[in-house]
């Protein structure tokens, strides 16, 4: 019980550090007793907190579950009862350029011919939501928020943005995709292949119904992270929708790094590459000699 309370409190502490004291009070209230829901017209506040700000990859790492807690305050009680609030939580991996190549039959052989580069494709993407994304909101919102595997933005034009920070309380629909070149979702065969490959490897996944309200104001999201979770700076992004309209978002950084022996080897290989090569040679020589000595068969 104690652990539960502390894990519930943890997010509060974290955003208390970032925001004003008023929130601390809100947090305490929220945990101590079901908080009174504010009346209509009040602005919802929406925050998330992580129980950790880093994930370490060790030699036996085989994927993990990331639990994210969040608080939704000043929610409209009526809308809450009707379950018209929707929450989407995603963990967006480091954005790295990726080249997708396509093999074509040439002179009887399958050879890489066409290719396309995606400059901001996240190396991993895990998403949890209260309902299917298509039920939560319309496509134009999903595209402009780069939300969901199928609407994930993979590349930008020159000077483009990876995602658009819509103003809170935006009630009007963002400009249609074809009017703003930076908002064109990637939908060609290469983008589809990239999504398919990463989905099959577990790098991209989304689960519906894995965001649940644990009380009137507190919710938790379960994200499943794959065994080959890429190292680097990840971002947890959470979106709040009311009646299908995007109203709030919140984000938190999360660092994934190799720790222990793996980190040691990786750093050695990258920062002292020549020495590492010599070490690999010395190891091989030793192993060869060792085999000879241990099994004196000739």
């Amino acid at each position, binding site marked *: 019980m104690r652990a539960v309370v502390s894990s519930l409190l943890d997010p509060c502490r974290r955003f208390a550090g970032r925001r004003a004291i008023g929130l601390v009070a809100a947090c305490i209230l929220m945990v101590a007793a079901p908080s009174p829901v504010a009346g209509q017209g009040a602005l919802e506040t929406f925050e998330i907190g992580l129980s950790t700000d880093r994930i370490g*990859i*060790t*030699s*036996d*790492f*085989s994927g993990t579950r990331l639990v994210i807690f969040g608080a939704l305050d000043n929610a409209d009680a009526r809308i809450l009862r009707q379950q018209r609030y929707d929450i989407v939580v995603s963990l967006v991996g480091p954005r*790295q*350029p*990726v*080249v*997708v*190549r*396509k*093999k*074509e*039959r040439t002179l*009887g*052989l*399958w*050879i*890489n011919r066409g*290719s396309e*580069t995606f400059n901001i494709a996240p*190396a991993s993407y895990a998403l949890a939501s209260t309902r299917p994304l298509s039920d939560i909101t319309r496509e134009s919102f999903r595209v402009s928020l780069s939300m969901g595997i199928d609407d994930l933005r993979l590349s930008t034009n020159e000077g483009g943005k990876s995602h658009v920070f819509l103003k809170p309380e935006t009630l009007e629909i963002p400009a249609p995709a074809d009017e703003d070149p930076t908002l064109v979702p990637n939908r060609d065969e*290469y983008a589809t*292949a*990239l999504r*398919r*490959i*990463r989905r099959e490897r577990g790098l991209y996944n989304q689960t519906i119904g894995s965001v649940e309200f644990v009380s009137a104001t507190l919710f938790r999201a379960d994200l499943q992270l794959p*065994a*080959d979770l890429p190292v680097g700076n990840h971002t947890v992004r959470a979106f709040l929708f009311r009646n299908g309209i995007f109203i709030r978002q919140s984000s938190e950084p999360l660092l994934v790094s*190799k720790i222990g*022996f*793996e*980190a040691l*080897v*990786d750093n050695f*290989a*990258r920062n002292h*590459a*020549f020495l*590492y*090569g*010599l070490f*690999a*040679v010395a*190891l*091989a*020589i030793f*192993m*060869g*000699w*060792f*085999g*000879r000595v*241990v*099994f004196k*068969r*000739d």
Partner: protein
Amino acid sequence: MNLYLPIAELSVNLVVLFGMGAAVGFLSGLFGVGGGFLITPLLIFYNIPPAVAVATGANQVIASSFSGALAHYKRGTVDLKLGTVLLIGGAAGSAAGVALFTLLRRIGQLDLVVSLLYVVFLGGVGGLMLVESIQSLRRSNGGSGEIRRSGKHNWIHGLPLKMRFQRSKLFVSVIPVLGIGFLIGTLAGIMGVGGGFIMVPALIYLLRVPTNVVIGTSLFQIIFTAAVTTVLQASTNHTIDVVLAFFLMLGGVIGAQFGAEAGRKLRGDQLRALLALLVLAVALRLGFELVSTPVEPYSTSMPSGEIG
């Protein structure tokens, strides 16, 4: 029992790695080859990124060829002078090979070139060996199964810059020796092999080096070619995974001892016929991948060609 490989960046089964090393070690002990041409394709079949498989294969080759060369050195069947000239060419060749490797990876054609080289060289060498050993098996009734070559001269013996190699009883130009070394070094860089399976026939048929000196000398020079390749791959491509290499070597040195034991019970031409069949099987498997319709025609990589 799973283990996360720090450079290949994926989880693999430890027992499978060890078993692979042991199986290849057994075969390399049996046939007196480094085993690079087997370990690299095996790693690729096991989903290790080809770039890491090639580089780490070269690393593993050092261990098995050092072990083998040590035994040959004790028996006095290593021509150090010939080996040194070969490895001068070999070092230059590996530099060229690693540079080519980096370039091919950037343009996305590395896998194709590696597979093609394997098919061409393994197919060619395997085919020739099979024909030769079958002829030898038919001919010999209780012979030693050794390849015998007369002192016939060919065009190679007319080249300038001649050098005397006492142990090999050879007086030959250094140009073809350097050339063979260079070619093997380049292949080692691109294919992650020691090149013994090309070196041995080249020394026997082109330079007329006595068979008993060939394997020891070839192993001796492969240690250095593979070492240069390993260091270059580590510094330019960061593709050597020592954890992967360690478990392969561990399996390899153990398997090699049993392989060498088994090898003593077989005749030379029988061994060569078996090796030829094995080499052809690997070539066929890789060739099949090139012509069969892939399950997933798309692949992804980082712009540098690294697997992302």
